[in-house]
């Protein structure tokens, strides 16, 4: 049913259920918003989007008001402007405005609104001084600064709707209302997965990643140090957004050149260890399946879950610790890389591992936490020294004054710089599954996966939970036990979707052998360390770019990666070897659920 209304004297016709805000946007009428976010349910809290409805007693919040027949809306009357100015001034009065020093300076939505509606003399009294605000720096991934919080609750909605964690919730009321962890405990000591989705959606500097840019510059300029950097697959399809490109532009070659010009000693690719992960995890899966299907071993946990996403790992450690055995023991590609950088790479390059500083560029804030885990010192050193987000890399590029757009693209360095399309697609939900199937199917049957152009389409797309069944036929002699087996797999992204799978598992109703889970919506392309803003549209563009990157690769299967072949030949022996286990595998910790 269509509803007819007037907005600023223009006739609009929109389907029933549309909000006034959506209807206005359809007419290219801009109504400012703040608490509203495309990924989240409507809150109607900040009131920045108030507009005038003829005949109504009060102004109405455009984001929360459904259209009705004959509505007469005006978005820019004096009454509206005055109210908006007051509202923005009120928000500023409870916000510690150290704008010029703030990490979010010029990227702050409140600042942008202030520019538009509240420039000039401050209207109201400062309220920040009346509150005993704290800054929580306990997490290695992010900082929560309550004095900059304007209570839009985007973070709270993110944590509950998208991530099913609710590590933070709204607490108290009135002037004491705030966003709290459980009884205001430090964020490092609650169920928080460090996924950074809240950071991605915070309009102000109240939630920002903990930055290690200065430490990385120090390392780069330290002549004693050899600084290696790895870049995760999802970074190359998003970095451009912070440097003036549209979402979905691939900037791989320029990024590599930029890193070189920033002064990193060796520019390497996490895709290499993504491919390595496939070898290790694929072998682990096949071994588990053999134990279950051939040996009838009931102690082997099936389904096996992927373990690449540190947000997901922390989620299961807190919320489903009884299923830790279902997790693959493989470290994430970042940590495999870290462990090899200070062993294999050091040997090959004849470097003293104590002089190597290992930096990773990640779409992720949870990776900062992961790098800090005590398990991640397999090399005898901290395997990864510093993790920077995509955003932080963009900051470094700007700090260095690089003319990014005009950089000549270049290639990754060698030893751990080679990659395949399979490694690249790790960056999108379903990518690990697709990469694993490309390799595992070929190992087991000697033939390529039966999908056109290797594109395993059931694993792709933005559905929250995807399922697929692949019948294994024509096994080689070594793998006869899998003949005729219908391999059932599932893929989930966003922890709310992960939780759906876990509920099935808990109820004994999960028929799967192998499950890929990524903590963030869309997978790593939608990671908490990616450029802001984010939306389904933006994530889809990044995803498209990832698959296009895959299509452009010469090699598309992990087991064909020459660096991977080399590392087994020269160093590790074979997948799941003793040394592999020492360096590339890990264990997990049951944690409290609060």
């Amino acid at each position, binding site marked *: 049913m269509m509803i007819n209304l007037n907005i600023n004297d223009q006739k609009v016709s929109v389907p029933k259920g549309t909000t006034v805000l959506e209807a206005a946007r359809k007419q290219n009428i801009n109504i400012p918003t703040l608490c509203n976010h495309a990924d989240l349910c409507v809150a109607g809290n900040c009131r920045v989007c108030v507009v005038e409805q003829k005949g109504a007693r009060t102004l109405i919040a455009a984001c929360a008001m459904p259209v009705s027949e004959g509505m007469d809306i005006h978005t820019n009357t004096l009454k509206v402007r005055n109210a908006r100015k007051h509202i923005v001034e009120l928000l500023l009065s409870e916000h510690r405005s150290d704008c010029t020093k703030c990490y979010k300076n010029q990227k702050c939505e409140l600042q942008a609104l202030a520019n538009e509606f509240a420039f000039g003399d401050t209207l109201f009294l400062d309220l920040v001084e009346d509150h005993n605000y704290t800054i929580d720096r306990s997490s290695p991934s992010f900082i929560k600064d309550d004095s900059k919080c304007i209570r839009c609750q985007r973070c709270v909605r993110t944590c*509950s709707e998208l991530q099913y964690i*609710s590590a933070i*919730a709204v*607490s108290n*009321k009135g002037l004491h209302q705030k966003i*709290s962890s*459980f009884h205001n405990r430090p964020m490092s000591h609650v*169920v928080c997965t460090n996924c950074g989705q809240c950071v991605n959606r915070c309009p102000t500097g109240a939630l920002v990643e903990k930055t290690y840019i200065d430490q990385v510059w120090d390392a780069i300029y330290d002549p004693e140090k050899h600084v290696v950097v790895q870049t995760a697959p999802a970074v190359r399809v998003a970095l451009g957004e912070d440097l003036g490109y549209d979402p979905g532009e691939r900037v791989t070659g320029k990024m590599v050149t930029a890193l070189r010009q920033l002064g990193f000693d060796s520019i390497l690719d996490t895709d290499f260890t993504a491919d390595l992960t496939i070898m290790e995890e694929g072998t682990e899966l096949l071994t588990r399946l053999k134990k279950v299907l051939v040996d009838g071993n009931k102690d082997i946990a099936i389904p096996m879950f992927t373990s690449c996403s540190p947000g997901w790992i922390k989620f299961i450690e807190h919320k489903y610790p009884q299923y830790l055995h279902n997790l693959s023991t493989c470290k994430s590609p970042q940590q495999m890389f870290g462990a090899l950088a200070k062993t294999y790479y050091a040997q090959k390059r004849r470097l003293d591992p104590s002089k190597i500083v290992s930096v990773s560029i990640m779409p992720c804030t949870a990776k900062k936490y992961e790098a800090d885990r005590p398990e991640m010192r397999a090399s005898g050193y901290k395997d990864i020294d510093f993790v920077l987000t995509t955003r932080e890399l963009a900051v470094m590029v700007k700090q260095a004054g690089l003319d990014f757009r005009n950089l000549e693209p270049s290639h990754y360095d060698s030893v751990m710089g080679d990659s395949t399309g399979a490694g690249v697609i790790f960056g999108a939900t379903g990518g690990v599954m697709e990469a694993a199937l490309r390799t595992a199917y070929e190992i087991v049957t000697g033939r390529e996966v039966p999908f056109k152009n290797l594109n395993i389409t059931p694993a792709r797309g933005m559905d929250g939970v995807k399922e697929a069944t692949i019948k294994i036929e024509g096994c080689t002699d070594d793998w006869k036990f899998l003949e005729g087996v219908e391999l059932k797999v599932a893929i989930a992204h966003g922890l709310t979707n992960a939780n759906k799978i876990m509920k099935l598992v808990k109820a004994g109703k999960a028929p799967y052998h192998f499950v890929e889970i990524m903590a963030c919506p869309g997978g790593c392309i939608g990671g908490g360390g990616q450029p802001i803003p984010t939306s389904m549209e933006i994530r889809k563009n990044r995803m498209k770019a990832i698959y296009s990157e895959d299509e452009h690769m010469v090699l598309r299967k992990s087991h064909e990666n020459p660096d991977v072949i080399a590392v087994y030949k020269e160093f590790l022996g074979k997948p799941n070897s003793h040394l592999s286990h020492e360096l590339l595998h890990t264990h997990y910790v049951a944690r409290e*659920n*609060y």
Partner: protein
Amino acid sequence: MYQVGNLVKKLSDKHGRSRESIMPILQGIVEKHNYLTDEAMVEVAKELDISAAEVFGTASFYTFLDTQVRGKYVIRVCKTITCSMKGKSEIIQTLEDMLKIKVGETTSDRNFSLIETNCIGWCHKAPAILINEIPYTELTPEKVVDIIKGYLHK
């Protein structure tokens, strides 16, 4: 040691384990235990399968669902306009002198907590207080002394 887990289980059995059960459960804990310990809130979260931060968020919204240490007898002195006009300050003074605590504090024997609260609906008989759920009205310092003596001998 006091087993708060058992209490939460009992209350959850009684009131159910859906989200709407949280208020009677939290009220039941406060009734038995004077306030909500972290342990109790974690238990509630477990029983209802919701996050502990949400339990805290919900509890902290409601003035009577204290998440800070409270004594066996929680004295809530109404501070809203009529009580304030009719001698609230003397009532507080008397209570502070008698219990040797300030507003917001709990006696060291955990017997009494003294807090201020908003309108409790006894304006025509101001000043008024609640001790746990029992209202006392038309108070004078003398009456307050007698009332508290009664509780001291309980």
